[in-house]
């Protein structure tokens, strides 16, 4: 959001955060979208303007919610742990959970709700298996701080960090179907790697998965 508080800066996808740019490309025009952890609504504003999306947001921070509503977006104050169970099944075409999964209390239940509420879920998260993180822990014996995971351990909201391999295993366990997966570098740019391979787990700084429930 620009200094004057307008959302004008998100007119160009280049101004969206890397992984959000990818999300915006995936989402089909005219869809119904729920963005969980929507911040000030940058993605929703972009989708509404450029893809005619019927968007809703959920955000924990009061300032984020207020900024979103102030800009005419439909945003509620809430969080993935407590406020997903009310939604009916298949209420949305896409449910987006961007960089928020490690901050949830019960990631497994959250994932299950995502694929229940949305026909598709788009989940992106930082990969804790990245080589720099492994090396930092191995050599320094300290919790890693990287451009993607930029906060020190006592300040980060992340309580359930995972690697790409961990996430794939959880999807198998919960019978969530991975429709598409993309590995990303630190800037959120796609990487040519098989996301389910061990190399991706070592080299990718972030990952983005398109999921759907195993029921269909």
């Amino acid at each position, binding site marked *: 959001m620009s200094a004057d508080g307008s959302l004008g800066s998100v007119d160009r996808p280049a101004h969206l955060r890397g992984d959000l740019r990818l999300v915006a490309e995936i989402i089909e025009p005219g869809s119904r979208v729920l963005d969980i952890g929507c911040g000030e609504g940058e993605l929703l504003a972009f989708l509404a303007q450029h893809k005619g999306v019927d968007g809703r947001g959920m955000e924990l921070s009061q300032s984020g919610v*207020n900024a979103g509503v102030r800009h005419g977006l439909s945003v*509620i104050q809430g969080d993935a742990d407590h406020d997903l169970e009310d939604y*009916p099944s298949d209420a949305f075409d896409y449910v987006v959970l961007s960089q928020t999964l490690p901050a949830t209390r019960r990631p497994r239940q959250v994932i299950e709700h995502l694929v229940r509420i949305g026909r598709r879920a788009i989940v992106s998260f930082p990969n804790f298996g990245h080589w720099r993180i492994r090396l930092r822990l191995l050599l320094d014996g300290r919790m890693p701080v990287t451009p993607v995971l930029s906060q020190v351990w006592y300040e980060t909201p992340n309580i359930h960090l995972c690697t790409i391999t961990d996430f794939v295993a959880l999807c198998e366990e919960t019978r969530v179907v991975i429709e598409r997966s993309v590995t990303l570098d630190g800037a959120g740019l796609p990487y040519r790697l098989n996301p389910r391979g061990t190399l991706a787990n070592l080299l990718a700084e972030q990952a983005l998965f398109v999921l759907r429930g195993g029921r269909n």
Partner: protein
Amino acid sequence: MLGAPATCIPETSPVPVPSPVRESALRPERPGQALVVEEPLALDCGVALGPYTIAYQTYGRLDPERANAILVCHALTGDQYAAGRHPVTGKPGWWETLVGPGKVLDTERYFLICANVLGGCMGSTGPLEPNPRTGKPWGLGFPVITVADMVRAQVKLIDHLGIESLFCVTGGSMGGMQVLQWAASFPERVFAAVPIATAARHSAQNIAFHEVGRQAIMADPNWAQGNYHELGRRPERGLAVARMAAHITYLSEPALHRKFGRNLQDRDQLTYGFDADFQVENYLRHQGISFVERFDANSYLYITRACDYFDLAAEHGGVLANAFRGTRTRFCSISFTSDWLYPTAENRAIVHALNAVAANVSFVEIATDKGHDAFLLEEPEFFATLRGFLDGCARHRGLAVP
């Protein structure tokens, strides 16, 4: 156009009139308009009430498409004078902070309608008004009314004004209950709904506070089983005590402390008696006394009862979400952190019900220490949120947004 005495309906356009109605003049001390509906209103209690009068004010101008109307619903002790000088108290209208040219409820862009609720005492039919059969004030002979009854009466007014679909229905507290009732009962006529600092049902605690107020009124010998008008008396002490108790619930402990602390009233030391030693006592006494000048005790009984009976889920099989199934209305629910009368949890329950039917809903909790009364006060974050929501809705409605 503030306080303008006439509606701005173009005279040439057809006005659908579903039942015989007529505009009537109110008493000179209550300026504004009044609609008399001849066809009786079927109340929830089973009584057919009619003819009945709806006293109302309008602000701004209805656009040719009749698309810019906002219905403002007042709270328990509010009235139709949302803005401009109040004819009885001489003070600004109860939502003067929000209503006016260039304000959030911009009278240069929107056509605002505010009606005194059924059961009220500022011109709409209520226990203060004469029973046509006896010519004497209704008193306790007036049938018990509900929030749904209030809304049914408002529908007649909106019909009379020729408005098919309201751009927005908004209000705080009991006004918020009316907003929810409108959205549940007449979803196709409500484009946007903004229930503020309210609840989908009155909590046990709120019923309890109302009962204290009612008992205070009834304990006043001047109440005389509600027949005080005929006897030329008024239960002023009882009504003042009711107001004092209720007023505490509209504030918050931090706000009271900030305003008064333990400061003494016009004295340097305690008097060791029961005068108003403390400023807070003096303030409450003043609140009580000034309230009785403008409010009818029986009306207070009836309107508090209407709040107590409000339970939107009960009308829908006990499931609040069912009240909103299939709704296309855009909602914005607003609560205040220090409001313990209609706390955030109550407002959030509304939001959860709306989520359960995948309704279009925004929800904002405003940080303030001003308690329930915050919805009537200068709260910049609240104003900015409401303005943003209304502008967003206006764009979807095809209304001009500056």
